[in-house]
């Protein structure tokens, strides 16, 4: 969603984030809020536009891939400078890509693993050699793995780059006070500085929705990122505030433990519970759920019901539309439980995080599945503990979500592949593995769509990860601020923002 009213030059924008970002180092960073800060100071080789289409950013054009898919050539934007005044060139891109791939602790290592070689073949030309055809690469380079860091700053600060980040971007890093603020100032070296209106941006972590809203109302904050539906409803009663939103590329659902006995990355084993043993019990569980009602009751109808890993917003492989999701059918659910021969009520424990919204999701599910013959008990568990327990396989069902990636592969492979890095469900299906591999190597968008449609059906049939809804990115801003952009990747872009005249 965009806002194109004309703005005046000058002023500082204060943006509230719902948590404190982690390291301001594109190689090591792992949080969504961190990506929002990077959007202002670390541009990427590629970006997405309003329609979710990949467009060049620090690259001069879209990448050129060889016929066998194993060589990718990238032209680098001429005339761009890092915030430290050094030049952006092919060498800098190569240095960054190799650091992303090789630095111990890199969160980008897996995404860039297929890149076997990166070299500068000209001052502004980069050639990547891949182990195998890897279609998601462009999508990956439109995220943090495509951020280019100043080689001079990397050499000067080494591990401490996180405290002195220097990239190409509309704003440059000034200071960070942990837990309080990250201050950025307009970068005069930026190639598109003429279109940057603000003098600076301040990012403030404010986890509590009430507090964020109070600050938006008082004018201490101009932008609130990732607002919850209940706060958005409340904000809309305020004439001084306006709303931006975009659908997200991620999903929220519940994960069922069907074979995670030894922890992540291990081969699935056998679990002796009714939901793990018999797919009919899981199907009955899913049939007992009404996604529309869940969305209405918990989220005031402001999110989208969902039943597959890929968002219909995805430009590459459109997923299942909300209206095509399976409908609630308690009669059939009961019948399936009877066929499975399980003793009712089937007792299941659901681990949820401790947020009020997730608590309500749990309560609504509890009431729905009860009618079909399930006794769902809720165990609110603090986030870090829940991750540790669910990764280890110590659970029946848990609330599982993902903020989403541009390329469909980023929303399926780690979660659904046998022994995948985030397959906490213990799902192991050779057919799914085959479809994931095909989806990564086939370049033709139409064929990819077919592959992901089949994959979605297969995943739906396994009922190991029941997709329930997709969040929308809601951003509340003061009406005197214009030029903010909110796209499907969930980031708030303030490059062209400013105060109205």
């Amino acid at each position: 969603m965009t806002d194109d009213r004309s703005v005046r030059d000058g002023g500082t924008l204060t943006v509230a984030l719902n948590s404190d970002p982690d390291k301001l180092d594109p190689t090591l960073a792992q949080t969504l809020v961190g990506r929002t800060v990077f959007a202002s100071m670390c541009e990427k080789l590629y970006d997405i536009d309003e329609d979710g289409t990949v467009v060049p950013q620090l690259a001069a054009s879209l990448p050129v891939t060889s016929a066998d898919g194993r060589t990718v050539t990238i032209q680098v934007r001429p005339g761009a400078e890092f915030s430290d005044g050094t030049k952006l060139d092919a060498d800098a891109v190569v240095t960054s890509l190799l650091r992303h791939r090789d630095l111990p602790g890199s969160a980008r290592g897996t995404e860039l693993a297929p890149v076997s070689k990166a070299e500068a073949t000209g001052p502004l030309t980069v050639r990547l050699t891949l182990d195998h055809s890897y279609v998601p690469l462009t999508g990956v380079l439109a995220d943090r793995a495509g951020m280019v860091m100043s080689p001079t700053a990397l050499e000067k600060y080494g591990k401490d780059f996180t405290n002195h980040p220097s990239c190409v971007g509309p704003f440059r890093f000034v200071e960070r006070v942990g837990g309080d603020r990250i201050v950025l100032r307009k970068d005069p070296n930026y190639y598109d500085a003429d279109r940057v209106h603000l003098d600076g941006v301040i990012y403030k972590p404010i986890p509590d929705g009430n507090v964020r809203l109070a600050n938006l109302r008082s004018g201490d904050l101009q932008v609130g990122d990732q607002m919850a539906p209940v706060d958005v409803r409340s904000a809309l009663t305020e004439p001084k505030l306006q709303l931006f939103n975009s659908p997200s590329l991620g999903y929220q659902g519940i994960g069922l433990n069907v074979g995670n006995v030894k922890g992540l990355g291990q081969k699935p084993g056998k679990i002796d519970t009714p939901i793990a043993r018999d797919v009919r019990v899981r199907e009955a569980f899913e049939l007992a759920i009404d996604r529309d009602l869940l969305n209405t009751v918990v989220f005031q109808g402001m999110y989208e019901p969902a039943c597959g890993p890929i968002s219909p917003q995805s430009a590459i492989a459109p997923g299942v539309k909300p209206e095509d999701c399976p409908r609630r059918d308690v009669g059939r659910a009961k019948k399936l439980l009877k066929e499975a021969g399980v003793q009712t009520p089937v007792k299941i424990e659901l681990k949820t995080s401790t947020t009020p919204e997730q608590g309500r999701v749990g309560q609504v599910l509890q009431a729905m599945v009860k009618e079909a013959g399930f006794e769902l008990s809720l165990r609110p568990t603090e986030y870090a503990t829940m991750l540790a327990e669910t990764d280890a396989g110590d659970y029946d069902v848990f609330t599982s979500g993902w903020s989403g990636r541009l390329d469909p592969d980023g929303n399926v492979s780690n979660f659904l592949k046998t022994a995948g890095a985030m397959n906490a469900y213990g799902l192991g299906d050779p057919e799914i593995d085959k479809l994931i591999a095909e989806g990564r190597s086939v370049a033709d968008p139409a064929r990819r769509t077919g592959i992901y449609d089949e994959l979605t059906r297969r995943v739906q049939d396994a009922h190991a990860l029941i997709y329930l809804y997709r969040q929308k990115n809601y951003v509340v801003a003061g009406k005197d601020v214009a030029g903010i952009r909110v796209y499907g990747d969930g980031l708030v872009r303030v490059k062209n923002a400013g105060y109205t005249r």
Partner: protein
Amino acid sequence: MTKYLLTRLRQSLITLFLVSIVVFAGIRALPGDPALALAGEERSPEALAAVRESYGLNDNVVIQYGRFIGHALTGDLGTSSRTGLPVADAIAQALPVTLELAALSLLLAIVVGIGAGVVAAVRRGRPEEWLANAIALIGLSIPTFWLGIVLVLGFAIAVPVFAASGYVPFGTDPIDNLRRMVLPAIVLGSGLAAVVMRQTRAAMLDSLSADYVRTARAKGLSRGSVIGGHALRNSLVTVVTVLGLQLGHLISGAVVTEQIFVLPGFGKLTIDAVFTRDYATLQAVVLCTSAAYILINLLVDVVYSVIDPRIRLGGAR
């Protein structure tokens, strides 16, 4: 007095050492892997392993403790696993905020609490006492979070006299600093003011009926002198004890207030550190808070002797 102080200092250091062990063990007993908490939704096994390695989380707990204490003694409190910033810097930034908040709240509690307590005692059985008691009861009963939000709605949004959030150092802009600190100080100090009022009232009632006050009155001293110079001065011993105990609570109670007003103090630092299992920050924050508690107790004992000469500390014998 010196001997007493030295003994108390030695005891304090031993306490601090024991606290460091309890804190260290307690934090590690929390469920949830710090590497996982850090990685959040994106957790590749390689990245997790590298995080554990770089923060020494694979080592034996005893080795980790030894390293922590060794570094702490040289003033190195480690690096935050979440932000990569030095913990000492984070503490240096957070400490003035919390201390200022605690000091302002304390000031408010002393002025309002002692004032109302004296009035309630002196005007016993009159409307002033009822009013003071009612205010104290309200101050004790209102949840901090609710009071904070109501004050923000009233005095930062409806009538924008104060700011709803944020911190500006006093040295940078004193007016803006106070504009941001008054509401948090009221929220944090209201409970303490109520406690102080009740203590002052009770102690004053005792004092006012004591023989020495009767003697002072009989000697023809002015009303102000009797109340201020005799009754209040003796009542303050109890009040100082309560204040001392409560000052520790002020620092730890700042957690909620700092969340409401987005103040980058100790409370906020602690909460963030707990949720991200940021061991280095959490250890340092809890240790510093413990040290503050111990120091405050020590100071309270010293202040006793200044207010009431009847209390002779160790060296008198």
